[in-house]
């Protein structure tokens, strides 16, 4: 946990962003800082309450549980920043997993090649979303609600509801989902996630391309009146979201040794919750990758804590929901006071 945070923190310690300074100067007044404080507070409490909490095995499980979904959180955050949303990410994960698994199992395709096809499928789905949104002018919510069901439906049809056993996948491929790096004890997928997260966080603060997503989300008309090709930006967002969701789907089959049509059924809402806890707004123009990663970390931490404290799994949804409402309310009230 601490190791992971250090890496995240370095990612924003660039001259472009005063975020790191703000986090430590006035932690309580800053969304990401608040989330960090809650995470630290909860960790200390759990360290006292449960002897098992501070073990490396526990941290490994916890990180692995959100490393894959974390890819989707990054994607969702970008969609929210653009003023849109993508409800189809979980379905795309499942569909890509099923398609890659089928190609491998029934068509004896090389698993890496099959994965490439899976990524392309994600890109195609993202492109279709983008076309509906920019050319036909449907709202992202409606478009991706439809795509969510279409993608899940295809996954159901292709798999006929049967999980695909994929134990026969080559060990190198399994490594990306469940391998441990040498003697460090650190799972590869965590490192992979952190690299992707750090890269996207850096780019979201610095790159001219992602900056345009913020402009479009903040005020679409003003973006057009500033010479930004709004449709191109939105198109790009949904294509990227599709690819990231496909990537998460491929990591999932590597991790679980199987592909199922019911994979990731709640990931959409978890990803939205995480992004919003981390400071994204459904109105667009706001949010950071760092914040969203903290958001998903907090959700994973809560889930682990509930497990360790022997609170039944039925309580988890309730607690997650309350945390979301609390986080957003506190943020809203503090903003209102400032006005």
């Amino acid at each position, binding site marked *: 946990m601490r190791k992971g945070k250090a890496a995240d923190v370095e990612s924003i310690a660039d*001259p*472009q*962003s*005063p975020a790191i300074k703000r986090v430590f100067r006035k932690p309580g007044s800053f969304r990401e800082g608040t989330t960090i404080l809650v995470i630290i507070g909860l960790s200390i409490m759990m360290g006292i309450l449960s002897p098992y909490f501070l073990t490396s095995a526990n941290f490994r499980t916890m990180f692995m549980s959100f490393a894959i979904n974390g890819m989707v959180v990054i994607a969702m955050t970008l969609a929210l920043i653009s003023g849109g949303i993508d409800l189809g990410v979980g379905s795309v994960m499942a569909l890509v997993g099923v398609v890659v698994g089928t190609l491998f199992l029934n068509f004896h395709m090389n698993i890496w090649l099959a994965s490439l096809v899976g990524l392309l499928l994600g890109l195609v789905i993202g492109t279709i979303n983008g076309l509906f949104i920019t050319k036909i002018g449907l709202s992202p919510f409606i478009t991706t609600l439809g795509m969510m069901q279409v993608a899940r439906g295809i996954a159901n049809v292709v798999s006929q509801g049967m999980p695909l056993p994929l134990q026969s996948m080559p060990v190198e491929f399994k490594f990306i989902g469940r391998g441990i790096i040498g003697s460090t004890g650190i799972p590869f997928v965590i490192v992979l996630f952190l690299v992707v997260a750090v890269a996207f966080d850096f780019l979201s603060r*610095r*790159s*001219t*391309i992602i*900056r*345009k997503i*913020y*402009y479009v989300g*903040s*005020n679409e*008309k*003003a*973006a*057009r*009146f*500033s*010479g*930004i*090709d709004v449709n191109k930006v939105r198109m790009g967002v949904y294509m990227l979201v599709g690819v990231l969701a496909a990537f998460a789907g491929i990591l999932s089959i590597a991790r679980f040794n199987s592909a199922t049509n019911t994979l990731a059924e709640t990931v959409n809402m978890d990803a939205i919750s995480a992004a919003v806890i981390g400071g994204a707004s459904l109105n667009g*123009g*706001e949010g950071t990758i760092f914040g969203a990663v903290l958001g998903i970390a907090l959700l994973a931490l809560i889930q682990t804590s509930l497990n360790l404290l022997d609170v039944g799994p039925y309580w988890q949804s309730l607690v997650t929901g309350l945390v979301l409402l609390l986080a957003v309310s506190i943020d809203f009230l503090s903003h209102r006071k400032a006005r």
Partner: protein
Amino acid sequence: MAQPILEVRGIRKRFFATQALDGVTISLAPGSVHAVVGENGAGKSTLMNVIGGVYEPDEGDIILEGTKVSFRSPSDALGRGIGFVHQEIALCQHISVAENIFMPALNRPGFVDFQDIYKETKRLLADFEGHAHIDPRQKVRELGVSQQQVIEIVKALSVNCKVIIFDEPTAALTESETEVLFRIIGTLKAKGIGILYISHRLAEIYRIADTVTILRDGNLIETNAVSALDQVALVNRMVGRDLTDIYPAKAAPGTIGDAILTVKGLACKGVFKDVSFTLKQGEILGFAGLVGSGRTETARTICGLMRRTGGTVSLGGKELHIRDYRDAIREGIVYLTENRALEGLFLDLSISKNISVMDLGKVAKLSLIQAKAENGLAQRYVGEMLIKIASVGQKVNSLSGGNQQKVLISKLLSVAPKVIIMDEPTRGIDIGAKAQIYHLLRRLASEGIGVIMISSELPEVIGVCDRVAVMYEGSVCGVLEGGGVNERSIVQMACLSSEEQENHGRGVA
């Protein structure tokens, strides 16, 4: 003088470090129009919001018809007879006229007799000349801006308001619609209703107000009969200093060079048909005409923001083929929107990010934005344009209208344009900032940038522009220059047939 219908005494209101109102007292007589003037930030809106029940004052009393009252909410104030017609239309666009008007009454449990409210709506509308034909069943979004404003007024009247507050009611109206509004205000006066009237347009105040109160920095400067203050005195008291040269000197003869921008037969199907003019180096070319005459659309078509269906645009003798706004920016033609908040600014983003948006490459290396360069760019314009801010990282929505406008202009200047087209560049900003923008336009022109100013305020068109193109129903009907740039000629050209204007005068807000 009769007993005042409304008095406020010693109102104080503080927002954090800002004393928005510092002991303001005014008294409104029934059947009179009381104007409240002042620069942006003087406290006009705060005062109206206190009277309208939006804010509670920290100190001071509100006395309505001799009784001390306090309002907990806008609907509370409305219930006691204080109506508020906002600058921005605050109607529900998707429901009918009648339901909007009777919203206060419908806002309680029970059943609604629609026949009754339709009939009542008809009766109330009958008092408004030219609006009696509005169908109570019609959806509000199908109405024009001025008709919607009438609905707002009727809504206030439906609860028997004794006081109506108008906050910049003419900002979105055409000239003929403004005339209608003034006649309505006359009717309201005759009914003994007290009217509080806020406007940046001084000419209107002289036209309809009886009394004027001047606010500056939250303080009451003076309350007087309008007839007792001339315009110069009024402006000087508003800004607290002598503002003798609001308008810069015009271009000296001989300093005007060759044509920079030549537009021939420009057309945009269904909107305007035949627009031709030339813009010369060193001059400010004004565009006058009624709202709806096609000025904004012409500008947007030149810039590729609307589709050109005919005609040519040449820059420095070379014909341009502009397909979208990016092409125009590349050629050096930029457009300042008339709608600052909706189309101009990223209100939730920082000043730096607002200024750098048009050419991020300028502040980036290898597609990575350099914070130092970006903030430096903003800092340069903040200094040059005298923008009052705490830091360039501040969100734009924390700035006053005038400073927001300067940020927007900075954004356009950041791409070093050859031609800059400004659509209503001083809308909704105070007179001090207006003067600065006029001087800026003149400086740009003298530096060789072609400047076009579209404006509905004739005094500024006459005060600032060297030549004025007048548009009428989708074409340029004439260009005035020198001594010809005066109110009479412009109005004459702009209103060739005034009956027709009534029918075509649609708003382009």
